[in-house]
């Protein structure tokens, strides 16, 4: 059975935990030099309409571990620049017998449109401000390796929540698995009507991360200044930066996470980013294993 991986929001809990277990299993096998399932005849199309190196490479690496072939569609060189619609691009890939699709797109909901026309599995690698499910899975795996359970954990997501698909996917996943989610940031960067999102909103950092077991920092886009959402990078950093000073409000042993790319000295300071509490590199590493699990699961594989 083929499945899509588009939104954590619409996924049942047992599918989420199944994926996390599978990712842990793949990680253990790869680290022990054992065999993982081979999906040799499967070709994956990587369709990135927005620039991304880290996520694309992570999917490529996951495909490589599973023996799959991945095919890159650099969108600036493709027919999209000749005015082809997304629907026709998807139909073309379908009839070129690409088996599965990894897509990143600037528009929220675009992977649902792709799934409607593609027929095979579609994996969302980030759609607009909607979701980035594999990032949330990587983050959850990283937390689980250190905290054993998400149940009852206090997790604060700090920064530009309104424009962040990482924040949304993480909030859904953590909430579904029992964590207490807090969304922290200036009111201009928090959703003005958050009632249908999981979590509580906080506009003050100290309160928002007080007692936190995990802090997930979000990248601050510089264009938010031009849009009038923040006054300056300096003021933002003075109010919301995660550093040794502000970490005092969190629980001892609090994990500091960041989906990258990092603005050192803005949302997180240099020392903290390289410090003992940071698990940023582990998030990147786990990204490969959750994407392996995602491929395997999307093509109908089950946990062994």
């Amino acid at each position, binding site marked *: 059975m083929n499945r899509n991986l588009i939104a954590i929001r619409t996924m049942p809990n047992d599918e989420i935990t199944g994926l996390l277990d599978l990712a842990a299993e793949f990680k253990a096998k790869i680290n022990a030099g054992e065999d993982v399932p081979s999906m040799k005849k499967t070709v994956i199309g990587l369709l990135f309409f927005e620039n991304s190196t880290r996520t694309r490479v992570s999917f490529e690496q996951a495909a490589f571990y599973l023996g799959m072939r991945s095919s890159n569609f650099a969108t600036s060189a493709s027919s999209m620049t000749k005015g082809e619609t*997304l629907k026709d691009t998807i139909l073309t890939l379908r009839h070129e017998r690409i088996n599965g699709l990894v897509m990143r797109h600037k528009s929220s909901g675009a992977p649902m449109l792709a799934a409607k026309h593609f027929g095979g599995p579609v994996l969302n690698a980030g759609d*607009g401000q909607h979701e980035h499910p594999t990032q949330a899975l990587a983050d959850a795996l990283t937390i689980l390796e250190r905290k054993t359970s998400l149940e009852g954990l206090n997790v604060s997501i700090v920064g530009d929540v309104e424009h962040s698909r990482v924040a949304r996917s993480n909030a859904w996943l953590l909430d579904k698995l029992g964590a207490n989610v807090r969304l922290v940031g200036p009111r201009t960067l928090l959703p003005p*009507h958050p009632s249908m*999102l999981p979590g509580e909103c906080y506009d003050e950092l100290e309160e928002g991360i007080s007692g936190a077991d995990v802090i997930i920092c979000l990248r601050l886009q510089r264009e938010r200044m031009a849009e009038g959402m923040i006054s300056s990078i300096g003021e933002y950093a003075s109010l919301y930066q995660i550093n040794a000073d502000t970490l005092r409000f969190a629980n001892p042993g609090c994990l500091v996470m960041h989906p990258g790319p990092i603005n050192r000295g803005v949302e997180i300071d240099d020392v903290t980013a390289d410090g003992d509490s940071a698990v940023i590199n582990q998030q990147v590493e786990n990204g490969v294993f959750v994407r392996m699990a995602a491929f395997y699961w999307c093509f109908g594989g089950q946990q062994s």
Partner: protein
Amino acid sequence: MKTLLRNGRILDPSQNMDEIGSVLIENDQVVEIGKIEDLSDIDEVYDCTGFWITPGLVDMHVHLREPGDEHKETIISGTQAAAAGGYTTICCMPNTSPPLDNPAIVDFILDRAASPEAGGVFVAPVGAITKGLKGEELSNLAAMKRAGIVAASDEGFPIQNSQIMNRAMVFCNQIGLPIMAHCDDSNLSKGGSMNEGAVSAMLGLQGIPRTSEEIATMRNCLLSLHTRCPVHIMRVSTWGAVEIIRLIKSLGAPVTCEVCPMHFVFTEDDIGEFDTKFKMQPPLRTKVDVELLLQGLQDGTIDCIASDHSPHASHEVDVPFDEAPFGASTIEATLGATLTYLTHRGILSPLETIRKLSTMPAFILNLDGGTLKPEDLPVAQVTVIDPDVEWTFDRNKSFSKSKNTPFHKMKMKGKAVLTFSGSEIYRDAIYPAERYAIYI
């Protein structure tokens, strides 16, 4: 040729008439209404027992897309769709390509609408307030008025500069041309594709805040109050806009407004998983807004119901939500949706329903129609409605070229079965054949 519409419920809001009777049409004129005694020389009879006989419906807000976007709709397909929807007069919007901002395009549209293949309904063009809909220089409004425009509007490109709007109102008031205003502060709405609220936060779609509609509504209402120019507020969607219009009317401003069926039938929740059929401008709002719209319809703050028929081709809407155009094909569903959601639920009486669909629109834009009084009706405009027939809207049976509509598969109660526009008759397939008799 004498045509008798026999024994229907005559609903004529222009004379507060709600009584059983008949309507006699001779050639292209209504000649008599009420208890008709002299039945000599009748050529054909439509038995209207159980049906409503009403003034032809008037739709103030229609996009016919011609010239320029004939792949979405044409004057011919759009007027056929209008007739099927029960309309005898429709106003077409100026956001064509090129825009309807000069008399030559007015002539072109009126010529096409008069062609034999067209639906026979009367087309009343609305001219652009500013050249090219750019919001900068006024169009040649007086020349367009002579050519036949009935109102001025920059429609989906609302004028942001308050001074330009102020001058437009002063001049339009001088030449007797009402202004129709879509109210939107584009700095607030820019980049948005649905209502700013809980659903947009969940879906990660940029929101259009209610303030973008309400600030512009307030501005246009105040300009109308002070210039005395009649201003018609198009497609009201928020409770705040209803309150603003109620206030400005109480201050005596010559302001009127319309609501579109999408805004009282659907809410933001209907967007579901990014369904572009529900992408509207202004966006679908919330249950609270719908409640206040219904209240505004009941207490008369909202004067009219218009379709905002905005056809798009299917390939244009099979795209990501934020890239899809606003609007949908609605003219064939507006009467059915109004009867189902307002009349049958007791929000509007039958007479008030017809007032908002015919008499008020005609009155606001000084159009012929909106009445059955023979002396006030130069050419026949009559609609016969079966208020109780249950049917399911099927976009594949629609006359509109655009199949993009949120009303597809909706169960409705009530439908127009006959539409008389001058000597043109639209007879719906639903009209029972045994109720028609011809004696020639």
